[in-house]
């Protein structure tokens, strides 16, 4: 992997670097921003914010609900044992199990969506990263740029250090 | 495979497969060939007789195949055999009528008790230490024969005494016969809760020296003076069966039950009306009722005949027994006396009953005679709904009282003890143990080492009743005379022998055999007076109550009840009232001490049965323990709470037991169940609780010399808080306990 990137101590500078890259004709999707914290209040932190996760949560909840319904009702009918004079399929108590499984489905679906869409767990091999990020620096860079030399000026903002990865 | 597992497997599977499969040495036991033809899993019903009290209930034993560790010819081994699993009342038996009491249900544990003696024993330790070593039957019988021969050789046959219970039946007959033929005096009989006072009174009043049989089924009004007829007294099962019918069985007529006692017993707890009375004044109340009945002209005094005539002042209308005077003496309100008398006399058939504590006073005979006279006055003797006397197949054996062998100058040289434990069941002040220690040779036929058999030099353990021929001739309890015998329900587990057979054997082996010779065995002896051809049969049903197997029943089937009661010659005595005498000064010993037969253990002879130990007492729910019942309000005043350790002191000793405050006892009385406090009586009873009999005064009923076990006064002292010895099954005593009432003050 080849890459060129800058490390910035301040998010304002990172935002500027992102803006410069855009100005240099780099597509939004090709700009990598890596940070040790989320920057909700900066534009660069909002890129790619759209996600199907809430819908997946709803779908997961529905799957859980159906599972809960089938688990309770079908097993109760499969071997009808009478207890406490209750109906064989007893809705009131079953609703509790159905509720729990609905919520479990939603949670699990959200987490699966998270893992899939955030590519976790994943390998960092061949991907742009710099351990200095964990010290608080914000990394803005481009992986496999077509013309690294042209991008370096865009990243060279006062207060940032430009690095490049060869091989 | 551990030991416990082993038991479980045999119990659950009942097969040998699991046992032979593993190589544990414990399982490599000798296997005897099955002795009988029993189909696994199929129950057979065999008749027997419950031996635990004098009632003599006929039972059916449910026999099923099982694997038992047994002794055969001195050799231990495992055998598949028929084992008694459960006892039910025999529906064909006129006494039990297919029912059985809690004690009878537990009788099966006598056979399987882990501490039952499996072979003859010779004493090795000090007398009373309980240390014995097993010996063979040959040795044991030779020793007994030798001892008796030595007596005979010295011409001292009179120094042989046989101590037993006064249970009517062929067994006692045999003992008496053998003693007589040997040249010894009649057997000595001892029963703590003896009914001899009542028998004597019945002889005086009605000419029948025996216990009455009640026809409660047809009674409309019952006044009961202290008899625990639903619990421990006389023929409790038969009486309970009839009681059930008296309550709900007469088609809308429900008899009234009035109970008179200073303490609310289990029987009293069922009464419609409870009349608290001063101890020992029951006879006064009975005569008070008679007075009112006579004065009101409902019945004429002469109607009582002889039963009235023996009461001083009867013919004069009992002027000393006006309701006011009765109230003074008994504490029962005059108005109540009037009302009870009129109710009693106007709801015929009515019956009055007396037994238990009222007769265990110095004036017990008077109390009994007074109640008899009341019965006679309302014409309830020998009548439906009244009392009657069953004709007896043979005269009762004459016995001697225990006191005859206690005195230093009448100590027997050889004492044979069978099924009685006076060392435990008599007041310490009688010094029974000391007296027995003076006897040079004691042999016991007991199955267990108890306080009395521990003094024995030789123990020749009897079969259990389920393993031997048994016979009983109940003197009461049935509309039909029912001497009954039954064969063994199962084969013996151990190297034991039936005591009657041993006695017969000994009688033949004596240097001068007893003559004329008796049958070889008890079975033959019973066969001699039993119609042949009635053999126990196996019912088809699986449900026990469908069984109709019955014992060999002898005696007439004629109903005797309505026959005129036999009348012997009047003795021409008239008895006058005397105040009951209590041992202990009322100022120093303010409480009446009322020991009572425990529902579970009677006089303590059943304290070794674990089911009965764990059976909650009907009134207190106590299990595995002793306790003192004390009036709840009096306890509150004295700062005594549930479980507090109380010391009860009489002039003759003291015992400590936890307190149970109860609303069912008079404020000037404390009560204790009898039965616990064994020092030596198997693992289940030894060292458990205390024995209230020990501190009783040696007072006796004046006329009959019977122990007056209700005539002791005591003082009490709280000596500590709960010591965890009180084990109750129940929580609260009331359905809505006071402390949960209301919304606060």
């Amino acid at each position, binding site marked *: 992997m080849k890459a060129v990137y800058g490390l910035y101590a301040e998010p304002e500078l990172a935002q500027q670097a992102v803006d410069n890259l855009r100005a240099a004709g780099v597509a939004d999707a090709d700009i990598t921003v890596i940070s040790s914290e989320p920057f909700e209040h900066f534009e660069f932190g909002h890129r790619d914010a759209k996600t199907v996760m809430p819908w997946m949560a709803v779908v997961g909840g529905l799957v859980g609900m159906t599972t809960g319904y089938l688990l309770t009702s079908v097993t109760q009918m499969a071997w009808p044992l009478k207890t406490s004079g209750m109906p064989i399929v007893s809705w009131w108590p079953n609703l509790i199990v159905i509720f729990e499984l609905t919520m479990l489905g939603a949670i699990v679906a959200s987490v699966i969506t998270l893992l899939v869409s955030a590519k976790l767990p994943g390998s960092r091999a061949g991907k742009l990263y710099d351990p200095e990020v964990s010290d608080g620096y914000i990394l803005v860079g481009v992986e496999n740029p077509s013309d690294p030399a042209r991008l370096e000026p865009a990243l060279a903002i006062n207060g940032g250090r430009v690095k490049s990865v060869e091989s | 495979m551990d030991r416990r597992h082993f038991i479980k497997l045999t119990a659950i599977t009942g097969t040998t497969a699991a046992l032979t499969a593993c190589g544990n040495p414990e399982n490599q036991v000798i296997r005897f060939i099955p002795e009988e033809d029993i189909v696994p899993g199929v129950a057979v019903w065999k008749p027997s007789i419950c031996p635990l009290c004098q009632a003599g209930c006929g039972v059916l034993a449910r026999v099923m195949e099982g694997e038992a560790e047994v002794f055969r010819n001195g050799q231990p081994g495992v055998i598949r055999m028929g084992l008694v699993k459960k006892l039910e009342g025999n529906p064909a038996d006129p006494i039990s009528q297919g029912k059985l009491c809690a004690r009878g249900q537990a009788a099966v544990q006598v056979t399987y008790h882990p501490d039952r003696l499996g072979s003859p024993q010779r004493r090795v330790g000090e007398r009373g230490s309980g240390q014995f070593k097993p010996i063979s039957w040959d040795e044991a019988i030779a020793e007994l024969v030798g001892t008796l021969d030595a007596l005979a050789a010295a011409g001292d046959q009179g120094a042989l005494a046989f101590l037993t219970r006064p249970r009517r039946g062929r067994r006692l007959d045999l003992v008496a016969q053998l003693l007589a033929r040997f040249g010894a005096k009649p057997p000595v009989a001892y029963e703590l809760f003896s009914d001899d006072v009542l028998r004597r009174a019945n002889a005086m009043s009605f000419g029948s020296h025996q216990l009455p049989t009640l026809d409660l089924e047809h009674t409309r009004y019952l006044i009961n003076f202290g008899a625990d007829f639903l619990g421990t007294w006389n023929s409790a099962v038969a009486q309970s069966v009839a*009681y059930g019918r008296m309550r709900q069985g007469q088609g809308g007529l429900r008899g009234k039950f009035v109970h008179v006692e200073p303490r609310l017993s289990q029987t009293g707890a069922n009464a419609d009306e409870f009349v608290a009375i001063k101890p020992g004044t029951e006879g006064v109340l009975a005569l008070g009722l008679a007075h009112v009945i006579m004065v009101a002209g409902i019945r004429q005094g002469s109607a009582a005949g002889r039963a009235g005539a023996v009461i001083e002042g009867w013919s004069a209308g009992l002027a000393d027994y006006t309701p006011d005077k009765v109230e003074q003496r008994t504490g029962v309100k005059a108005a109540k006396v009037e009302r009870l008398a009129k109710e009693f006399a106007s709801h015929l058939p009515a019956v009055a009953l007396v037994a238990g504590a009222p007769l265990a006073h110095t004036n017990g005979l008077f109390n009994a005679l007074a109640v008899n006279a009341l019965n006679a006055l309302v014409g309830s003797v020998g009548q439906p709904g009244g009392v009657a006397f069953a004709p007896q197949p043979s005269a009762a054996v004459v016995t001697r009282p225990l006191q005859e062998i206690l005195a230093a100058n009448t100590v027997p040289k050889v004492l044979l003890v069978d099924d009685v434990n006076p060392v435990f069941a008599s007041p310490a002040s009688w010094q029974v143990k000391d007296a027995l220690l003076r006897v040079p040779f004691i042999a016991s036929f007991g199955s267990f080492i108890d306080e009395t058999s521990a003094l024995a030099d030789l123990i020749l353990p009897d079969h259990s009743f389920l393993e031997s021929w048994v016979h009983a001739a109940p003197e009461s309890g049935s509309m039909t005379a029912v001497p009954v015998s039954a064969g063994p329900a199962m084969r013996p587990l151990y190297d034991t022998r039936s005591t009657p057979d041993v006695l017969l054997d000994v009688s033949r082996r004596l240097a001068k055999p007893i003559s004329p010779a008796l049958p070889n065995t008890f079975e033959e002896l019973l066969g001699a007076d039993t119609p042949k051809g009635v053999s126990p049969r196996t019912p088809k049903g699986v*449900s026990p109550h469908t069984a109709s197997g019955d014992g060999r029943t002898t005696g007439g089937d004629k109903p005797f009840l309505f026959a005129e009661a036999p009348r012997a010659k009047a003795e021409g005595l008239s008895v006058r009232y005397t105040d009951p005498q209590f041992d202990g000064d009322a100022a120093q010993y303010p409480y009446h001490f009322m020991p009572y037969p425990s529902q579970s253990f009677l006089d303590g002879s059943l304290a070794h049965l674990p089911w009965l130990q764990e059976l909650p007492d009907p009134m207190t729910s106590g299990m595995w323990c002793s306790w003192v019942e004390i009036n709840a309000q009096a306890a509150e005043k004295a700062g005594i709470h549930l479980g507090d350790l109380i010391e009860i002191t009489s002039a003759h000793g003291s015992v400590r037991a936890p307190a149970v405050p*109860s609303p069912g006892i008079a404020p000037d009385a404390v009560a204790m169940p009898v039965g616990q406090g064994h020092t030596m009586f198997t693992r289940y009873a030894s060292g458990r609780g205390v024995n209230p009999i020990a501190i009783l005064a040696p007072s006796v009923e004046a006329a009959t010399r019977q122990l007056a076990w209700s005539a002791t006064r005591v003082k009490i002292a709280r000596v500590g808080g709960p010591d965890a010895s009180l084990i109750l099954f129940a929580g609260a005593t009331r359905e809505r306990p006071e402390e949960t009432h209301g919304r606060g003050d």
Partner: protein
Amino acid sequence: MAYRWGMAVDLDRCTGCEACVTACHAENNIPTVGAGQAARGRAMHWIRVERYYEGDFPDVRVKFRPVLCQHCDAAPCEAVCPTYASHQSEDGLNAQVYNRCIGTRYCGNACMYNVRFFNFFNPEWEKPLNLQLNPDVSIRSVGVMEKCTFCVQRIKAAKVLIKSENRDLKDGELQPACAQACPTTALVFGDLNDPESRVARLSHSPRGTKLLEDLGAEPKVTYLQKQAWYEPDAH
């Protein structure tokens, strides 16, 4: 026709003698726990005779009341069991399947009659008391709840018997151990579906009540209340 087993308890007949208690122990292999365990509340009595005092001496009265499993139609013990160890059988018995019981003891809490008993330890019978054990009744191991079964082993045997003899069950032919022992016949057992049976008739007696009826468990045991004595002549 399906059976519906029930019992009538005549409190006017019951004398508190507790013959039923021992009979039950003998029939159902109920372990004796011993003094130490009894003191710690582990005594097992599938049937017990409750005793309640009313009033104070000398105006004191006593109520006896045998309490056993009421075999409720809407038994609160059943639904709470997570493994169906406690459930209603076809005969209307409140069945306890020992093998399925894992010992949550929830049923014991839910039962308002406190008639369920728990095996806190493996039961022991000191030899040779084990020879008495009823081979028709399984032995319960540690950690298992147990309770009155209306002597289901007798019910099963009776069904086999009448089938082999091709006949109907006679009323009164089948009795649990407690009813069989009861000297005063205070306990009457039978088929509530048979309107002619003694138990069915007694269950409709005006004296009949159910224990804790308000709690809605719909017990199949009917208690016939004790009657007061009245003077027939006074009417």
